[in-house]
């Protein structure tokens, strides 16, 4: 390895230089080596300029026979290895790119998901704590000012509507809030319950006046569907649950566990941040 190393350096340097000095010897090399163009010139025009002189005579004869016969093996091998290498690189790159795709891209790719984060609506982006009843721009809400106490979201299944003001705080904590049209058939509610019960960073409640049977939301993203078995619901939960939190590591415990509208004194058990 020591010999080709140092020699490779001058040879590549020379190509540039020889464009000035070595043009005359380079052109016969081209003419002789028919297909061997710049690559061959690199090797051929190396140090010994004299070699060209001696080479001139033989070149027309030798390259044709020898090159064709002898070098197929290595070329095929290298070609095959190069193909394998490219294959591995392609596979690797794709897997790396796909693996590093953020959850935001994954959820945005789900058909029907509305990305409210992209709208930069200050009313949705607001994160301050406010007492009492609050109004929201979407129904159900996907963000905005909220009560100091979140709704408990450790896989809690509420059988009556809960306060938006608490639920929005849970969204800030990374919870997926599954809502369904109030009065949805019990067997359909049961299907949804299975997606939530026992799973931290999720909560579920009926929602009055919902325009579709089901609406699933995290902070800034919402998906509305009519079929409780729609696979997009699971996909939405898988892609957003917990990672949608605006504060990593924040808990879904210690929140409000009652249903009904927000009360004036709903300080709950604290943990509001």
């Amino acid at each position, binding site marked *: 390895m020591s010999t080709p190393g140092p020699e490779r350096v001058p040879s590549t340097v020379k190509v540039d230089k020889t464009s000035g000095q070595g043009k005359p010897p380079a052109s016969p090399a081209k003419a002789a080596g028919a297909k061997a163009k710049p690559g061959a010139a690199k*090797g051929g025009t190396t140090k010994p300029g004299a070699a060209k002189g001696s080479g001139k005579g033989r070149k027309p004869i030798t390259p044709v026979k*020898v090159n064709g016969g002898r070098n197929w093996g290595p070329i095929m091998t*290298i070609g095959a290895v190069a193909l394998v290498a490219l294959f591995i690189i392609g596979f690797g790159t794709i897997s790396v790119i796909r693996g590093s795709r953020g959850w935001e891209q994954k959820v945005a790719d789900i058909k029907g998901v509305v990305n409210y984060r992209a709208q930069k609506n200050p009313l949705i982006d607001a994160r301050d704590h406010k007492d009492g009843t609050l109004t929201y721009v979407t129904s159900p809400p996907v963000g905005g000012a909220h009560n100091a106490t979140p709704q408990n979201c450790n896989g809690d299944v509420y059988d009556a509507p809960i306060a938006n003001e608490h639920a929005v705080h849970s969204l800030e904590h990374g919870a997926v809030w599954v809502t369904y049209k109030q009065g949805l058939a019990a067997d359909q509610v049961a299907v949804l319950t299975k997606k939530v019960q026992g799973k931290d960073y999720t909560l579920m409640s009926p929602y009055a006046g919902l325009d579709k049977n089901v609406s699933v939301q995290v902070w800034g993203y919402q998906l509305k569907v009519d079929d409780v078995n729609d696979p997009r619901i699971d996909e939405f939960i898988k892609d957003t649950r917990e990672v949608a939190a605006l504060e990593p590591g924040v808990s879904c415990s210690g929140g409000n566990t009652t249903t009904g509208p927000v009360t004036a004194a709903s300080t709950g058990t604290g943990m509001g941040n």
Partner: protein
Amino acid sequence: MTVSTDPEATPDTVASGDDLTPTRGRRSWILVIAALLVGTLLGLGIGLVVPHLRTPGDNSVEAGFLRDMSTHHAQAVEMSMIVHEKSTDPEIVYLASDIALTQHGQIGYMQAWLRDWNLSPSSSRPPMAWMPDGAGAVVNGLMPGMATPAQLAALRQATGKDLDVQYLTLMRQHHLGGIHMAQEAVKLSHNKDVTWLAGTMVTAQQGEITLIDNLLKKLQAS
């Protein structure tokens, strides 16, 4: 093979070795460069792929354990926070804060590893699917040892000695389920971090069960 011999020969053999040397020299250089390129590409490819082969995948025992144990721990934090706020027994209050802080901290470890491995905290597979016969142990989405919504509601209502006894009983059950899962992870996983954390869970929670039993005895005697 020709690659290694020919380049060395270039300057000298050009003069001495007659017939094919100039062309062979050129060929060799192409081969050397091609080999180097292929080697570099291969190296890049391997470098890209290998780190992903070395971290656990989406359906691995490790990912399943970290996800499920995070959920399992979250309920222990939930119950402990209720009791930490409402109990009047200093020993129970301390135990509750110890469990809540430790398990919430461990959730942080587990979530960070999933993140390191480029895995989502959520799986499309059912809970406990990483354990042989695990899925059968899940009742209404609850893993072994987890309290039911009704039990949690009762705990939120309870006060005084009743609260303490309910908490200790639920937490004892919770630990037993957690220990079982952690033991399985130690057995099934080859990831050093995961087996280490799961191993410490087994030891610590077994110790806490002894403590819980003593506290229960004391409460029942009072």
